[in-house]
C-alpha cells in the first residue's frame, strides 16, 4: 500500500523540557485508512498529531530529530501549502476560531479564502460542509456566542470545507452529545470512502473499535503498539496502558473470567451481540 505520511526516527522535546514528548517514533501511515490514536493523557497523542501537521516544531519550537515525509517529501518543503494537504481540528475548538469573522458562515469560509479558492465555489462548499455537520441553523450567529458543542462542529466544518487529503482530528467529539458524536464518525467513514486518510485521537474507544482500520497506542511518548484493531482492543492489558477498553471487550473478558470461552473477544457491540446470542441459543459445549 501507498504510504501517505511517514515518521522516521522521531524524537521531540518541547522547549525547556528535560523529558522527550515523543521517543523514537517510526511509522508509515497508508492512504485511505482511518487511524485511531489511543493512550492516556500526556502519552503523546496530541504531540504526535501536531508533528504530522508540522506544528511541531514550526510553531511549538523545541528540539526535533528525525523527519516526517508527506507523499515522500519532507514536511518542511511544503511551507504554507501544507494547509491544503492536511486539515487539523484542534482539541480545544476555541483555538480553531480565526477571531476575525462575525458569523459562522464566514468563519467556515475563511480557510477557503486563505488558500485562494475560486469565489464562485466557496458558497456551495461552505453550505455543504455546514449541512454535513448540522450547523446550517447557526450560519448567521457570531462564533463567539456558540456553545462548546456548536463550536466543535463549526471547527470541523471549517476543516472539511477545504477537502484536504489528510484529516487530523484531536478529540473532535469531546463536547458533543451521543448523536452528534455518531454523526462525526459517520462523516469520517464517508471521508474514507472518498479515499481520504483520517487520523483521530479519541478517548471513546467504543467508536474507535467500530470505525477505525488500525489503532496506534501511545505510552509515555512511545508508540508501543499498532496494527490489528481486534487484537489490540480485545486485550485485557489495555487498562494497564491507561486506555479504557471497548465496553464489548470488557463485558466479554468478564464473561471469560466466569468460565465462558470465546473463540475471539468481540470489540464492538454488534460483534458482542452476535457472539453472546449464539452462546445463549446453543447448548453448552
Amino acid at each position, binding site marked *: 500500500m501507498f504510504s501517505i505520511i511517514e515518521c522516521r526516527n522521531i524524537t521531540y522535546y518541547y522547549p525547556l523540557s528535560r523529558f522527550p514528548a515523543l521517543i523514537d517514533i517510526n511509522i508509515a501511515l497508508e492512504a485511505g485508512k482511518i487511524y485511531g490514536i489511543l493512550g*492516556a493523557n500526556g502519552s503523546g497523542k496530541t504531540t504526535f498529531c501536531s508533528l504530522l501537521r508540522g506544528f511541531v516544531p514550526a510553531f511549538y519550537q523545541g528540539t526535533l530529530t528525525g523527519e516526517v515525509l508527506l507523499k515522500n517529501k519532507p514536511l518542511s518543503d511544503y511551507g504554507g501549502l501544507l494547509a491544503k494537504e492536511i486539515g487539523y481540528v484542534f482539541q480545544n475548538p476555541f483555538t480553531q476560531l480565526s477571531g476575525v469573522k462575525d458569523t459562522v458562515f464566514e468563519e467556515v469560509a475563511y480557510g477557503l479564502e486563505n488558500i485562494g479558492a475560486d469565489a464562485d465555489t466557496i458558497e456551495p462548499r461552505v453550505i455543504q460542509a455546514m449541512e454535513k455537520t448540522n450547523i446550517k441553523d447557526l450560519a448567521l450567529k457570531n462564533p463567539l456566542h456558540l456553545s462548546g458543542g*456548536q463550536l466543535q462542529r463549526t471547527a470541523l466544518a471549517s476543516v472539511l470545507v477545504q477537502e484536504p487529503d489528510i484529516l487530523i482530528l484531536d478529540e473532535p467529539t469531546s463536547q458533543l*452529545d451521543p448523536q452528534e458524536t455518531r454523526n462525526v464518525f459517520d462523516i469520517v467513514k464517508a471521508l474514507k470512502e472518498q479515499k481520504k486518510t483520517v487520523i483521530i485521537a479519541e478517548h471513546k474507544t467504543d467508536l474507535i473499535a467500530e470505525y477505525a482500520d488500525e489503532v496506534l497506542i501511545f505510552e509515555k511518548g512511545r508508540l508501543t503498539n499498532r496494527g490489528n484493531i481486534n487484537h489490540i482492543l480485545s486485550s485485557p492489558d489495555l*487498562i494497564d496502558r491507561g486506555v479504557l477498553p471497548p465496553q464489548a471487550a470488557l463485558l466479554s473478558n*468478564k464473561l471469560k473470567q466466569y468460565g465462558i470461552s470465546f473463540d475471539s473477544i468481540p470489540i464492538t457491540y454488534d460483534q458482542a451481540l452476535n457472539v453472546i446470542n449464539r452462546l445463549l441459543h446453543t447448548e453448552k459445549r
Partner: protein
Amino acid sequence: MKDILFQNVSFSYPDSGSVLEHIDLKINGGEQIALIGHNGAGKSTLAKLINRLLSPTDGNVWIGDMNTKEYTAAKIAHHVGYVFQNPDDQIFHPSVEKEVGFCRKIVRQKGQNVRAQIDAALHITGMEKYRTKNPFELPLSLRRFVAMASVLAMDPDIFIFDEPTAGQDLAGRNTLINIFRDLKEKKKTVIVISHDMEFVFENFDKFIVMANKGILFFGTRKEAFQTPQLFKKAGLEPPGILRLCRHLGIEAADVETAARQIYDKWVGLP
C-alpha cells in the same frame, strides 16, 4: 442539607426565544443526579439557574430557604459550587495552590481550616504534585482537575459539574468516580451534566432527562429503563451496553450487571 426547588420556572435569553418553560422540580439535599439531554436541551441553563448565574424570567428557584432572586451570585456561591465545562472560564491564578486557595475567604467564614481544605482538595483530585505549577502549563485534562479542586476546597452543600468526563482518560475517570464517592459519603448534593452515557449509567442512580424546553423524565435508573422510548424522545443514544442487553432480553446498563445476568442465563441452559 438544602433542597433545590424550581417553582414554575421559565427562562429566555434576551435575543433568542425561550429555553426553559414551566419547570417544576425538587432535588432533595444529598441526592446525586445525572442531568442528560441533547446539545441545546437547556441543561447548562437549568444549572446556571441553580447557582444564580442566571435568574428566572418567570417563577422562583429556591436553595433551602433562600429564594435565589433575593441573593447575588456571589452569595449563592457559598452554597453552590459550579465546575465549568471549560476550566479556563474559572482559572486565573498563577499557581495551582493559589488557584485552589481562592476559597480561603469563604472557608474562613465557615470556621473551617483553610490549609486542611486546600490539602484535601488537592489530594483527591491528584493535583498535589502540581501545587507550584502554573495551571496554564498543564494540559486541558489536568486544568479541569485544578478547577474542580478549587470548587471542592470551598466545600459547598451543592456541586454542579458540567461535562466532567470530557477529554478524561481512564485514570481521569477513576479520579472522578472517587470524587463523587467521597461527596456521596459527605452527603453533598451532586448534579452532573453529561453526554457520557456509559459513565453516568454506571455511576449514578438518579437521572433528569431534558428535552423540548422542559424535563422529560426525573427518576431512578431502573425507572429510566422501564420508560419506553425515553432515549428516543430525548434525542439521545442509549448507552451501548443497554442496547446490547435489550437485544439479549435483559436489563442492565453497566458491564458488571450485564456480565452477571448473561452468565446466569448461560448457566441455566441445558
